[in-house]
């Protein structure tokens, strides 16, 4: 019997909102900004219908503060913004990383710096997603390249944030956020949904920042009788501030260990026509669509070109790229910024083969023809 299909035409922003609802997100706090506003628009309508809460805050600093609170109360929480708002959120992203509060921050990238290009695409926030907030902190960032994948990666963003008690950044770009595209909607009852692990001990035995083997401490929700202290200061296993060098070191190292030792679970790369490729493109988000088209055109012309598309931007897919180091003679990194990811690719390859940069920052997407032209003869 043929399965009942549910085909819709949605934008990436709409699919992001739908994916968040499917993942169990029930608290959204945000401040509207182009090109992300449709995420809020959909959730303002849909959340109240299912017992969720939508709140428009006074700015982006308050927005991320609110979702950190929502998550501590046990509700999956999210905010969405674009460059200028993402800049304002940085301090509290660090707080969420330090206090290990799961939450999802959607950044629909537009041209920058500053207010930049509100309605035009860019991919200039790759490094800001990694290092926008200060101090040594781990982060997870995902970047979908289609509307259907935006739905899937939004669900995944929540799953990873719950599993590893960490903020997760979902980087869309204006094209993916605004393009209307055909989506065969997944059966939401069949999705894998991961929830944070609750404490297995009585409240008086609970250590909210326990140095567990997997690196992730169980998480109690406020209001359940587990009283604990949450702070951005370096803290010990009880959550209270400490000046003990041993405790501080253990904390910061564990924050990294919980992501690093699970990087194979987190990092996803899509290899397209890479098996016999001699030239490899590396790209992500909407630029990866142009790259995929360029690969098809190059193949028609008999050139052995493939595409490594990064679905996870952070942690970086260094191992996955290095795996092709002996095979690929030339690398081309295409991105709508001035080389933020290319630098990581060069570092991963450590000089194994030349890396050419294809960059564009004029508000116009990189076209398949431009990528084709950038390929070595």
């Amino acid at each position: 019997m043929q399965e009942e299909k549910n085909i819709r035409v949605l934008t990436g922003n709409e699919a992001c909102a739908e994916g968040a609802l499917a993942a169990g997100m029930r608290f959204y706090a945000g401040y509207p900004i182009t090109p992300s506003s449709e995420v809020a628009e959909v959730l303002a309508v849909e959340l109240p219908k299912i017992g969720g809460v939508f709140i428009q805050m006074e700015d982006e600093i308050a927005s991320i503060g609110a979702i950190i609170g929502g998550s501590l109360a046990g509700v999956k929480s999210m905010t969405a913004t674009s460059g200028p708002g993402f800049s304002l959120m940085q301090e509290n992203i660090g707080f969420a990383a330090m206090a290990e509060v799961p939450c999802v921050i959607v950044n629909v990238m537009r041209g920058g710096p500053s207010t930049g290009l509100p309605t035009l695409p860019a991919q200039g926030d790759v490094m800001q997603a990694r290092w926008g907030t200060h101090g040594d902190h781990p982060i997870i960032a995902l970047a979908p390249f289609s509307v259907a994948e935006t739905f899937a990666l939004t669900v995944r963003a929540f799953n990873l944030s719950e599993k590893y008690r960490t903020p997760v950044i979902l980087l869309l770009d204006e094209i993916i956020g605004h393009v209307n595209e055909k989506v065969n909607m997944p059966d939401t009852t069949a999705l894998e949904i991961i929830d944070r692990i609750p404490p297995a001990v009585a409240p008086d035995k609970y250590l909210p920042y326990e140095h567990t083997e997997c690196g992730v401490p169980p998480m109690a929700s406020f209001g359940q009788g587990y009283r604990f202290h949450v702070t951005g200061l370096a803290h010990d296993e009880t959550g209270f501030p400490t000046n003990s060098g041993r405790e501080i070191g253990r904390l910061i190292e564990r924050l990294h260990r919980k992501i690093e030792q699970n990087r194979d679970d987190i990092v996803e790369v899509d290899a397209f026509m890479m098996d016999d490729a001699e030239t490899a493109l590396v790209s992500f988000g909407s630029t990866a669509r142009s790259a995929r088209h360029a690969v098809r055109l190059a193949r028609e012309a008999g050139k052995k070109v493939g595409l490594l598309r990064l679905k996870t931007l952070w942690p970086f897919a260094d191992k996955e790229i290095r795996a092709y180091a002996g095979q690929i003679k030339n690398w081309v990194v295409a991105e709508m910024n001035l080389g933020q990811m290319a630098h990581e690719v060069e570092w991963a390859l450590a000089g194994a083969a030349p890396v050419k940069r294809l960059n564009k920052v004029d508000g116009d997407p990189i076209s398949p023809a431009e990528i084709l032209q950038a390929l070595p003869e």
Partner: protein
Amino acid sequence: MSFRYEIRLSGEGGQGLVLAGKILAEAAAVYDELNATQSQSYGPEARGGASRSEVIISDEDIDYPKAVNIDLLLALTQESCDRYHSDLKKDGIILVDSEAVTRVPEGSFRVIKVPIIQLAREKAGRALVANIVALGLIAGISRIVSEKSLLTAIEARVPKGTEELNLKAFAVGLREAQAIMK
């Protein structure tokens, strides 16, 4: 044989070209079981300013969602016609509002002039539905999306209470196209 058909709807902000593009994409993707994307490009202004909405329809995966080799260009204003005709195919079609666009670019493409806004005002009842009159014209000229699918998509997408007006506007455009293509 696979195909990729590119349509660019251009005019000024507020003329409903994004909605028209979304209806076209939905008709093709949901009801005609093809692949379709609709994307847009606009400035920071909410109304006015040159605006464009692009629809790609294909029987294959659509990698690049922007128009680069246009089969059909709709221009409802002179400014949009001047700015957005450059990617038209040699044998493409340019459909212009004959009152708003007086200078039509020269080239080997086919030019079709129709008083779209006037038809919307006088035959359909309101100038506001010029976008749907244009959809009727595009349906009749391109034959890329079925009439039935477009009617279903229009009914599903236009604001509640305006279905009749919009369906009428579509019929006006379609009839005009049939007269032209005879």
